[in-house]
């Protein structure tokens, strides 16, 4: 049964039997891995034997065990649940644990580089501490006073999309406000709009984060190019479901003309 699935898929190592040379040998992948630190570095080529279903992180582990024991990489669960092994594979921000080698053409070199948006520490490891600083400033969950702690499954389902974020920071890496314009001091980034959406849409939450979104998180800087949504390994529709509704909240709260008049009159 498994076999049928594998064979129906193009470019799968076990299914393809390419004619000609190399057929007798076991397959090798060629990886070019960035080696270096804050003072500079370059890509180093490694040839790695390929097993069926192997992912880029397996290849990195093979290199550590056989070629470069000091190759720095972060990883934990190896199951796309912890969001530790983020890198740029052939230029695309990806989790190495779910990027399969058999998705690349056999003759193509696979480049593995650290996330560009964050300062490099060594090899594939970057300094992501800025994200933790942003998170500290987000107003936490605050239950509505006197709330009845009962709600429907649909309330859970609605907000679950935002709460399944694994904090891989790939959306932060790809976001041009952070990556190209380097506005980390003004802009919280897609990860934290997802985080705020998860709090704002919590059925029991009573906090208002629209002021924070406008003045501290810089949500206005996002011009909805949806790059973050494209790279999200958890398939969270970041732009449409988190950022745009939050932008609307900010607009309603601060820029609605009727409300502006009302606020002037009442002083609220």
């Amino acid at each position, binding site marked *: 049964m498994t076999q049928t699935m594998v064979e129906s898929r193009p470019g799968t190592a076990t299914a393809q039997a390419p004619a000609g040379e190399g057929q007798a040998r076991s397959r090798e992948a060629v990886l070019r891995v960035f080696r270096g630190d804050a003072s500079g570095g370059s890509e180093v080529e490694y040839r790695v034997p390929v097993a069926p279903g192997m992912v880029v992180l397996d290849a990195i582990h093979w290199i550590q065990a056989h070629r470069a*024991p000091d190759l720095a990489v972060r990883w934990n*669960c190896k199951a796309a649940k*912890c969001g530790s092994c983020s890198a740029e594979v052939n230029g695309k921000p990806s989790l190495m644990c779910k990027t399969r080698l058999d998705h690349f053409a056999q003759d193509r070199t696979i480049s593995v580089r650290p996330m560009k948006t964050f300062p490099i520490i060594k090899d594939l490891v970057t300094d992501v501490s800025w994200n933790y600083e942003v998170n500290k400033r987000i107003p936490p969950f605050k239950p509505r006073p006197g709330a009845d702690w009962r709600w429907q*499954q649909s309330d859970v389902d609605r907000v679950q999309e935002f709460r399944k974020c*694994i904090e891989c920071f790939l959306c932060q890496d790809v976001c041009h406000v952070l990556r190209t314009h380097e506005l980390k001091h003004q802009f919280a980034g897609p990860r934290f709009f997802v985080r705020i959406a998860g709090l704002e849409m919590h059925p029991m939450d009573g906090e208002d984060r629209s002021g924070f979104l406008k003045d501290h998180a810089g949500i206005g800087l996002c011009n909805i190019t949806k790059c973050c949504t494209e790279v999200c390994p958890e398939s969270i529709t970041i732009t449409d479901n988190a950022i745009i509704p939050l932008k609307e909240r900010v607009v309603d709260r601060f820029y609605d003309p009727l409300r502006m008049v009302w606020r002037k009159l009442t002083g609220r």
Partner: protein
Amino acid sequence: MEKYETHEHDVLVIGAGGAGLRATIEAAHQGVSVGLVCKSLLGKAHTVMAEGGVAAALAHVDPQDGWETHFRDTMKGGSFLNHWRMAQIHAQESPDRVRELEHWGALFDRTQDGRILQRAFGGHTWKRLAHVGDRTGLEMIRTLQDQVVHLGVPVYMECTITRLFTEGGRIAGAMAYWRESGRFVVFRAKAVVIATGGVGKSYKVTSNSWEYSGDGQTLAYEAGAELIDLEFVQFHPTGMVWPPGVMGLLVTEGVRGEGGILRNAKGERFMWKYLPEARRHEYAVDEDEARRWVEAAVENRQTDDKRPPELSTRDNVARAIYTEVREGRGTPHGGAYLDISYLPAERVQRKLPSMYHQFMELADVDITQQPMEVGPTMHYMMGGIRVDPDTASSTVPGLYAAGEAAAGLHGANRLGGNSLSDLLVFGRRAGLSAAQYAKALASNPRLDEREIEREAGETLAPFERTSGESPYDVHRDLQTCMDRHVGIFRVQEDLELGLKTLATLKERARKVRVEGTRLYNPGWHLARDLANMITVSEGITRGALLRKESRGAHSRLDHPSMDPALGKVNFCVSRAGEEMKVAATPLPEMPAELRYLFEMAKEKVG
């Protein structure tokens, strides 16, 4: 020696999974200064991988449930080797801990009347696991993490503790290095809470990440604490078996909780064959009854039908799958089929979203259409640091432990869902007791500069060597040794061979050489972790040799039945100079009022 930074806290918590976070919160609530140290980034600990749910007798779905039944299930699941008092506290307090989590913002799936929904799990009489799809651990860790962040507790991320310091037998602090820079850090602390998880990385086929190298158990052992029940290693019955890169990756018990059926290559539903006679009456008698039970669960209604045989305890299901494969009825990749595809695809995707994606992306298997292939994977340690049930204190003053690193609650086998509740219940107690101890301490314990220097030298030694093996080679051989000799079924000769191999591995690990600089160097980090893995592996093997019986997760082919005399003792590991000492210590006896709970239910104790 080189300059190092020093930090001072009343309570130092090591490990930032569920137990460490919960301990941190409680200690901070007591108004003492707390520091939290973890080897990875915050929020990446193994709790994030927990899928199925947290066990608590809330009785939202099955109103018959209560702490007494949860207590009985836990004791039966652990073959009565559990510390009765821990099992009692755990069953009584876990509902409050789950509700508290909800008030801190955790979102669980709901019942029709809007309360926390609960699902069935192996060995639990009633539907008991509060969950959110199959992402319960993620929801828990984010909620706890957020509490810690807003309490302003300093978190020392990517920092590895290598030694605990004592003064006059009590805790005085700890030594660590930053994984990023390789520089040393010294912590002065009145109390330490160990919440470092298990030792999965001693095995090749495991659901555990690199972090699970027995650090906490080894730190405690070297500081003079006692470890118990190390021979009880839980092999989760359902790990992925294909493709090779993901071998061992966890397939949540939630699949079986939702109605997943196990079959062998011949299509036989084999679990009935393996139900222990004493428990058979707790399960459906045939496929029809099992199906009716699943239908009722799907429709969220009460039923008198009994649960399917796949919901037997983990030790039992793991042995069943292993035996089916060994006897030639395994699937093409050496496992069993686990099938949930007979349920509506929409339900499977909603209740088991990460399993759906995991199989689709890593194995090209659509679990809504096809069965999964699964086999046992090393998952959890029941054994660990011996603690006092009420205070979570170890046998060393000022040293506390909680979660997987501690022992006693689960006995010979842990029920699924009981570890998330364990983290909350005993994490809280450990944090509370550590804070109280620190407050009551009149004077600050002193650190000995010579010990700091000695420890720094030892940690850096692998850089000094001009010859020696790579730590990766020794690690690979350790995993082979443990998989082969101290696995799911054990015999005397294998265990003896394992012990002999471990002695040579210990020597080899002492001589490993690392390349490169101290800057984020995984080879160097492994060299250090390796020593811990070997220490705990030796404890596992020694315990397994002495326990000449089969009980819970410990199965001896040469001693296939339970020995009532061994049911009255824990094997206790402690350090005697450079040697590891193992002694049988008496298991505390359950008081009459708790024994009465079993008599009421007409169940045998022991």
